[in-house]
């Protein structure tokens, strides 16, 4: 028998042997860009990969009919070379010829019809119901022409379609949904060539077509690596184990800015932060929030500039209107409520709440922001009792009419149009806390109008009324920090949809 002590010594020696210098795995030398993400991709089939990482997967390995420029938001051709509206509900697309899937199959109208119909059927439970749910049917006109027919007038049709990838009908039917998720095939700039554990490996598609909004990648290999802890991501960035990461919190980004090996870039997203107020008295018939003066007092009590500058940080800007500034139909020219504690107190007194009141407030995202808001409310006598929960639980509470105030945020599911945000929070939706018939009418009409100018006017009407009545307390935009190695340039988008195929080594 080997002496146990000896075995211990051997183990320590063995451990010593492996303490050799680490070779860098990421980098320029092997033309491999390693990007870190907090979440793993639940599936490699875009239709079953939700969230912003799913969006990225859709862009990397797949193509949609149309493409949206991530900085100008202009819609450009991709798998479709041109499109037109045949009637109010019908869109016709001319498909690009000569496009091949990664397995060599040609992309045809059959694949488009198959993919869009898959997205449309609720049984398939694709990543976001909104994007495909509007489609009534897809007609194949000829091998390079399709018509997409909506159930009703759908002004956001193109914004939805740019999220829906075209997948190969024959291959997907042959291998099945589960098989496809393991060995997926798209037309995108990168092929999925494997992966294990936390990594998914994307390899350049050398046959990627020219002429669309996307292009053949400059960097050969892209590794999608899941590292759930942001502190670990930061350590890896400093150590050179990864080349790129995003959603780095403001305090960490501040420290990284001083590091010689990385660049920190802060850029806008569609996400905005706001408070929803139970103006309709859904949570309680005698809710103080039913009083316009109380809602206005809350709007005046919050120092948006300070929140944006110190707590959200970076490029964050205060907002006054219930929409993302870049969105079609969003106007900032509405009633403004500047930070004015005295005015807020006076409004509270006029409303008969000189001594303030107790109220429940719900939150899920940033604790520091929640604490700051509670502090601001407290300054005008509103004693807010915080309920801290998961996102889905908070939303359910609101739908069950239990939430006087929610500290909420919304990214409009990547859609650059107020038609993604207003119908969700107003117009008698389950999350509508104001139930104002005038707002509802304007939003509903805009949602069934194809004419852009008319829609703009209707949304402006709704947004003005929302601000006048202080139904919401809009607070700030929520930009994110991108951190990347000094060796690489990865263009930074304004909508979180990073285009890794445009990345280049310096």
């Amino acid at each position: 028998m080997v002496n146990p002590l000896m075995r211990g010594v051997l183990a320590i020696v063995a451990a010593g042997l492996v303490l050799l210098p680490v070779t860098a795995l990421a980098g320029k030398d092997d033309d491999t860009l390693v990007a870190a993400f907090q979440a793993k991709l639940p599936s490699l089939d875009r239709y079953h990969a939700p969230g912003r990482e799913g969006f990225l997967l859709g862009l990397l390995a797949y193509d949609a009919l149309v493409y949206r420029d991530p900085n100008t938001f202009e819609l450009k051709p991709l798998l479709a070379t041109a499109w037109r509206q045949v009637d109010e509900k019908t869109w016709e697309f001319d498909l690009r010829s000569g496009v091949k899937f990664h397995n060599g199959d040609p992309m045809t109208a059959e694949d488009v019809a198959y993919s869009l119909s898959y997205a449309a059927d609720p049984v398939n439970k694709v990543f976001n119901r909104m994007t495909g749910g509007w489609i009534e049917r897809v007609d194949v006109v000829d091998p390079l022409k399709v018509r997409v027919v909506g159930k009703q007038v759908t002004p956001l049709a193109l914004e939805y379609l740019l999220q829906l990838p075209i997948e190969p009908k024959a291959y997907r039917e042959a291998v099945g949904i589960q098989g496809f998720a393991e060995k997926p095939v798209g037309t995108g700039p990168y092929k999925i060539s494997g992966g294990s554990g936390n990594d998914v490996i994307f390899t350049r598609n050398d046959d990627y077509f020219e002429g669309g909004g996307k292009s053949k990648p400059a960097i050969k290999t892209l590794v999608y690596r899941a590292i759930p802890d942001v502190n670990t991501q930061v350590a890896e960035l400093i150590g050179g184990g990864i080349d790129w990461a995003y959603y780095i919190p403001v305090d960490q980004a501040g420290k990284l800015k001083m590091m010689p090996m990385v660049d920190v870039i802060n850029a806008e997203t569609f996400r905005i932060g706001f408070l929803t107020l139970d103006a309709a008295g859904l949570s309680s018939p005698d809710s103080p929030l039913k009083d316009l003066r109380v809602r206005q007092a809350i709007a005046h009590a919050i120092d948006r500039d300070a929140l944006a500058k110190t707590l959200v940080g970076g490029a964050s800007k205060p907002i006054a209107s219930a929409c993302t500034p870049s969105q079609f139909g969003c106007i900032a020219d509405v009633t403004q409520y500047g930070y004015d504690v005295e005015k807020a107190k006076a409004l509270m007194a006029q409303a008969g709440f000189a001594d303030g009141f107790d109220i429940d407030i719900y939150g899920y995202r940033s604790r520091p922001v929640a604490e700051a808001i509670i502090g601001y409310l407290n300054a005008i006598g509103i004693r807010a009792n915080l309920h801290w929960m998961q996102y889905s639980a908070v939303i359910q509470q609101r739908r069950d009419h239990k939430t006087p105030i929610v500290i909420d945020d919304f990214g409009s599911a990547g859609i650059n149009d107020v038609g993604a945000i207003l119908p969700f929070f107003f117009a008698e939706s389950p999350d509508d806390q104001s139930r104002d018939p005038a707002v509802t009418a304007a939003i509903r009409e805009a949602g069934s109008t194809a004419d852009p100018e008319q829609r703009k006017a209707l949304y402006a009407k709704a947004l003005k009324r929302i601000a006048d009545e202080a139904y919401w307390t809009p607070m700030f935009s929520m930009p994110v920090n991108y951190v990347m190695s000094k060796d690489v340039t990865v263009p930074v988008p304004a909508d979180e949809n990073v285009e890794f195929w445009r990345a280049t080594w310096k």
Partner: protein
Amino acid sequence: MASYIARRLGLAVLVMLTISFLSFLMLKMSGDLAISMAGEGSGADYVEFLRKTYGWDKPLITQYWDWLVKALQGDIGTSFYYGSPVMTLIVERMPATLALGAMAIVMALCTAIPLGMAAGRYPGRLIDKVALLVALLGVSTPIFWLSFLLILVLGLQFAVLPISGGGSFRHLIMPAMALAFYSMPAIIRISRAGMIEVMRSDYIRTARAKGLRPHRIYLGHALRNTLVPVVAVASVQFGFLLGGSVVVENIFAIHGIGYLTWEAINQNDYPVVQAALLAVSAAYVVLTLLADIVNMMIDPRIRLD
């Protein structure tokens, strides 16, 4: 003996049922899977559709019962988030966690036993105080803090070990060190106590009287007798390590059960959480039972009944 094991197993089943019921309840109360699955901005009618499709609109107790009946038939379900069978996920993730746990327990034993024995040999002396300090630090240091400290020192300052991921043996060293430190105190204490006890025993006095060299006395006689209870404690600690790996696997991005559990909790993916918890609690229950049996075989004076 057989009746004892049967009773213990019966108790273990009850423990696991309780764990699964409580975790199911807590998970259901903490969030709404239908809303997270529907995606931001999805309409309430679709959320309702999902609830109906998956039967989440039924009373909680019915949902739990449906899950349990299937689980007892060997069908632990499909992950809502990943879309693949839970069994596949568990089988895929288990090796990393087992390798990490095994490495951690080996590290803990290799350092804690010599330290504990030295402390027991010289109670009250410097080495004893060092051992006590290590044990104290082991129980009081938050595991995430130690993990980041290791990353800072070994991953960045000296850059000798990879910071995250699980591709190789070297990737497991830092997380195993963090876990090992966490399980050392119990082993130090038991080997120290064992050593003190052994050193007082008659056979050591006899060995000394025979004129045996000190290293023969310690390694040949004392060590082997001290190790006996350590084996039992170590197996229980191994069970702890499987549970404790949730934090460590997340920090070091190890593709194991701990990471899977954390993801599943975030997504309210209850079939996965249930299965992972059951796997860990089953391992723990089995290890505790084995430890009891080993204890009894080592020392017949221990009466299990």
